[in-house]
């Protein structure tokens, strides 16, 4: 069990029964999905784009099994914009919950026997009796890149 007495904020993204948690510092904005423009049929790995001052931001949509979808689902409500250093993208999700992490919330490193090369999951977290997958901007970006490169 990993304990950290320093309270940190984090955001849980609900995606088709799956829960991903990002450090709050990786999230720069949350847009409603209505702001996204569908890109269906142009790039099967990108579900939509958001128009941002910096240009078009790709919106990725995961299934509940963390597989990339070519379009937003009916359950998609938000596009969470994620940024760290030069990495900048958006993930569609059904819901977002911001929580304070503390030592009472159990986190465990991903067991070696469950690891695969391309998985973005860094740890497993137990929150309100739900298993939450701990990721960050860079680990998900690395996974997105590996999918785009057909490594998965």
């Amino acid at each position: 069990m990993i304990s950290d007495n320093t309270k940190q904020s984090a955001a849980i993204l609900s995606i088709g029964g799956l829960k991903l948690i990002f450090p709050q510092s990786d999230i720069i904005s949350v847009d409603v999905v209505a702001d996204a423009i569908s890109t269906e049929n142009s790039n099967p790995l990108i579900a939509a784009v958001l128009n941002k001052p910096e240009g078009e931001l790709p919106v990725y949509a995961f299934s509940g099994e963390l597989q990339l979808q070519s379009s937003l689902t009916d359950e998609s409500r938000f596009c969470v914009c994620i940024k760290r250093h030069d990495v900048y993208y958006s993930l569609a999700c059904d819901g977002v919950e911001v929580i304070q992490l503390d030592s009472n919330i159990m986190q465990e490193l991903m067991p070696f026997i469950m690891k695969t090369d391309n998985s973005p999951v860094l740890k497993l977290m137990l929150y309100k009796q739900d298993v939450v997958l701990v990721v960050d901007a860079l680990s998900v970006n690395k996974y997105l890149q590996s999918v785009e490169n057909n490594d998965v």
Partner: protein
Amino acid sequence: MSEISRAWLLEASGGMKFAVAEYEMIEYVIAPELTSVPLTPEYCSSIILWNDHMVPVVNFGILTSEESSHMHSVSVLAYQENPQDDLKYIAISLQQPPAKVSISDDQACDIQQIDNDIWRMLSISCFTEQGIAVPILGIKNLASSEFSHELNEFFNQAGQSTDTLAE
């Protein structure tokens, strides 16, 4: 007079019998509620929530390519990375309930007699039971990065199937 050790004799999904020390098996769970974790190997793709722990479940039925891989029950096993560390847990799917056995030193045999590559890698020793070499599982070996790395190497090789591992 030879020494007698108490152990649990378990039958993993896939049919392989193995043993762990009596104190290493913490609980036998019938019809466990599994939570899938995406992008994990098929042989360890879910966890159980057990006593506030998230415990990975290893399905040797899938790992050794046997047909019988249905998860009827699991045994929760405890191990330590180092003597001063907290206990960690890993579960193995079973196809038969555990049986308590006594093993004498006279039953000890050579690990090379285990007729399965994976179980040879995981064993710390073995004994003969009704003429068959039964591995004694090194639980720490199963949870180790080295074992996972070796499995990944096997599966990443082009054309490598799990059948090869079972032989």
